[in-house]
C-alpha cells in the first residue's frame, strides 16, 4: 500500500502507525503457534528454550518426545488418536447426510416455518457448549449411551450439523434451480437428478461443511469430558488432562502434529472455497 506523494506528513505518520498496529496483531495471532515447533524438539524435559537451543547446538534438539508419543509405555496417545479419528469420521458422515438433506429442504421456497426451523437447526452452534454438554449428557445417560463411541458420535453429529446446514444453504443460495427442472423435463427422476446434477454442483459446500464438522468433532472436549469413559478417550481429552496435570513436551509433539493437520485442512478448505466460487461464477 504505497501512499500517494501528496500525502500530508501527519497522515503519513498515521499510516505507519496503522501498519505497525496491523503487524502487531498478525504477529499476536500467528506467533503463539510457532513457539510449539522448536520446543517439541527439545532434548530436555523443560518447556523453556535451553542455552543449547539458543546457540543452535544440534545436541540440544532431539526427537525423543515424538518417540515417547508413539512408543512410550502406558501411553494414551495411540488409543486417543484412533478414537478421535473414528469418532470424527462417523460424526462427519452423519452430519453431512443429515445436514445436506436439511439444507436442500430449507432452500426450497416451499418450505414452511423456515425461520424457526433454521433457528432450531443451528441452535447447537449458538448455545454455549457447556449447556449442550449437560443436556446431551442427560439424554445419553437415559438412553444408556454414556461412555460409548455411539454416544459421542451422536453428540458430535448434533454439534456438527449446523456447520453443514449453513455452508450448504449458502452454496444453494447461488444455485440455479432451472438446471434441476431441465433434468426433470428430460425424464430424470429426483434421486438421479440429485446425484448427477445437484450434488456435483454443491459438492464444494458439502465438503467444506464436512471439514467444519470434522474439525468440530476432532477438537471437541467439553461434551466428551462429560460423556467419555476411559475407553473413549480422545486426543483433546488427553491434552486437557495433560495440560491440567503437567505440561510435558510430549504434549507439544502432539500439538505440532495437530498444527500440521490443521494446516492441511486450511489448505483444502481454501482450495474448496475457490473452486466453489468459480463454479458459482463469482470472480474476484
Amino acid at each position, binding site marked *: 500500500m504505497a501512499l500517494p506523494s501528496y500525502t500530508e506528513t501527519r497522515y503519513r505518520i498515521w499510516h505507519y502507525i496503522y501498519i505497525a498496529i496491523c503487524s502487531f496483531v*498478525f504477529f499476536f495471532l*500467528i506467533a503463539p503457534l510457532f513457539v510449539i515447533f522448536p*520446543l517439541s524438539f527439545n532434548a530436555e524435559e523443560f518447556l523453556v528454550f535451553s542455552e543449547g537451543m539458543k546457540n543452535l547446538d544440534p545436541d540440544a534438539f532431539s526427537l525423543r518426545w515424538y518417540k515417547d508419543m508413539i512408543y512410550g509405555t502406558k501411553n494414551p496417545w495411540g488409543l486417543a488418536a484412533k478414537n478421535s479419528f473414528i469418532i470424527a469420521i462417523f460424526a462427519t458422515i452423519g452430519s453431512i447426510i443429515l445436514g445436506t438433506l436439511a439444507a436442500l429442504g430449507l432452500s*426450497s421456497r416451499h*418450505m414452511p416455518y423456515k425461520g424457526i426451523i433454521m433457528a432450531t437447526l443451528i441452535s447447537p452452534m*449458538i448455545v454455549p457448549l457447556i449447556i449442550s454438554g449437560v*443436556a446431551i449428557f442427560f439424554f445419553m445417560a437415559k438412553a444408556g449411551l454414556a461412555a460409548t463411541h455411539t454416544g459421542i458420535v451422536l453428540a458430535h453429529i448434533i454439534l456438527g450439523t449446523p456447520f453443514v446446514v449453513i455452508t450448504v*444453504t449458502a452454496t444453494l443460495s447461488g444455485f440455479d434451480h432451472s438446471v434441476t427442472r431441465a433434468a426433470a423435463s428430460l425424464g430424470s427422476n429426483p434421486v438421479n437428478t440429485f446425484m448427477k446434477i445437484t450434488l456435483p454442483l454443491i459438492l464444494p459446500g458439502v465438503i467444506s461443511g464436512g471439514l467444519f464438522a470434522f474439525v468440530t468433532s476432532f477438537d471437541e472436549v467439553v461434551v466428551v469430558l462429560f460423556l467419555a469413559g476411559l475407553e473413549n478417550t480422545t486426543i483433546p481429552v488427553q491434552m486437557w488432562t495433560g495440560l491440567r496435570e503437567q505440561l510435558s513436551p510430549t504434549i507439544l509433539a502432539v500439538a505440532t502434529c495437530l498444527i500440521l493437520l490443521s494446516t492441511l485442512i486450511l489448505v483444502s478448505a481454501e482450495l474448496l472455497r475457490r473452486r466453489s466460487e468459480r463454479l458459482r461464477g463469482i470472480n474476484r
Partner: protein
Amino acid sequence: MSSETKQILTTDGIPLEVSLKKAEKKNKIKAFLLVAPLLLFLVITYIFPIGDMFMRSVDDRMVTNMLPKTFKAMEKWENLDELPPEEVYRGFYEDYKLLAENQQHGKLGQRLNKEKNGFNTITKKLFRQIKRKKIDESASLKEQINKLHKRWRDVEYWQAIKRTAPPYTASKYLKGMDMYFAADGSIAQVDEDRRIHRILWLRTLEIAFFVTLFCFFMGYPIAHLLATLPMKYSNLLMICVLLPFWTSLLVRTASWMILLQQQGIVNDFFVMTGLVADDNRPEMMYNKVGTYVAMTQILLPFMVLPLYSVMKTISPSLMRAGKSLGGTPFVAFWKVYFPLTIPGIGAGCLLVFILAIGYYITPALVGGASGTLISNQIAFHMKTTLDWSFASAMGLMLLTGVLVIYWIYNKLVGVDNIKLG
C-alpha cells in the same frame, strides 16, 4: 370475478387453481420431509434434553414423595406459629418409619438438613428410637417426639418440613443468584461473604465484554487491511487469521501456557528489555491477565472474518468520493466507511461475546482461581458435587442470557448472514 368467467382447466379437467394448490402442498411436504430427519434427531437428542434440564432444575418431588402422610396432615395445621397438631406428628412418624424400613431415611435427613441446619441429628435420633422400638405407638406421638430433642419442640423445624411440600421449587435459581427462601417464605440474600455466584456472573460478563472489546480494537484494523490490500497479499495474510481459526483450541491454549509462564518467552522479553527485574518476574498465568490474553487471541478470528466479509463489499471509490468532496481522510473514514461496516461490527461483536460468555476450557487452564467463569462452576457441580439440578438451573440462566443476545443478533444482522471462513 364474475361467475361467468370461464374457469381455466388443466388437461385432466381439474380447475387450474385446485391443481396448483395440490402441487404446492406436495412441494411443501417434500421440502419438509427433507428437513424432518435432522429436525427429529435434534428434537429428541437435544431440544428435549434441554427441557429435561429445566424439569430437573425445578424438581423437588423427593420430599413430597417421601412424606405423603405428613403433608396430608399438615393441611389441617392452621396456626403456623405454634407446633403442629398430633396428626402431623403421627403422619411424620409413619412416613419416617416406612423410610427407615427401606433404608431411605438418610436421604431425607440430608435433604431436610439443607433446608434447616441441625435436622440430620434429630432425625437420626428418631431413627435410633424407632429401631430400638422405644416408641409407643398407642400413646401421644407428639409428646414422645418432642421429648427426644429440643429442636423437635422448635416450630421452625416443622415450618422447614412444610416448606419442602411443593413438588416444584425455584430455590436452585435463587441459589444461583446467592439468594434463598427464608423461614417465612420471603426471598432473602445470602451473607455478604458467601456471595460467590454473583461474583462469578459479574466476572463472566466482565471478561466477555472486555474480550469482545479487545477483539474489536485488534480485529478492525486488520480486517480493513485485508479488505483493502490487493488479493495476492491479502490471501497470504489471511493465513495468519485462518490458521489459528482451524487449529485446536487446546493447542492454542497450550502455547499460551508456554509463553506466559514465569520462565516463559514473554517474561524473558520483559526482562531483556529491562521492563521488569529478573528476580521479580510477574505472574501472567493463572489469573485474569492470562484469561484475557489467551481468549482474545483465540476468539479474534471470529471478529475478523465477519468484519472482513462486510468490508470486502464496500467499494473503495466511496472513500475517494468522500475525500474529493473535501473530507479529510479521517472525516471520510468516520462518516462514510465506518457506518457501512456496522453490520460486520454487530456480527463480530455478538459472535465473540456469545462465545466468550460460555467459555470453559481456556479459563480453566490459564485462569487459575480468579479466572474461573460461570461455565467452570456448572462443570464443577456436574462432576464434583453432583448437584445436577443446580448445574441445570445455572445452565438455563446462562442460556437465557445467550438467547436474548442471539435474538438481538438476529434482529440486527440476521442468522442467515453468518459467514464461515
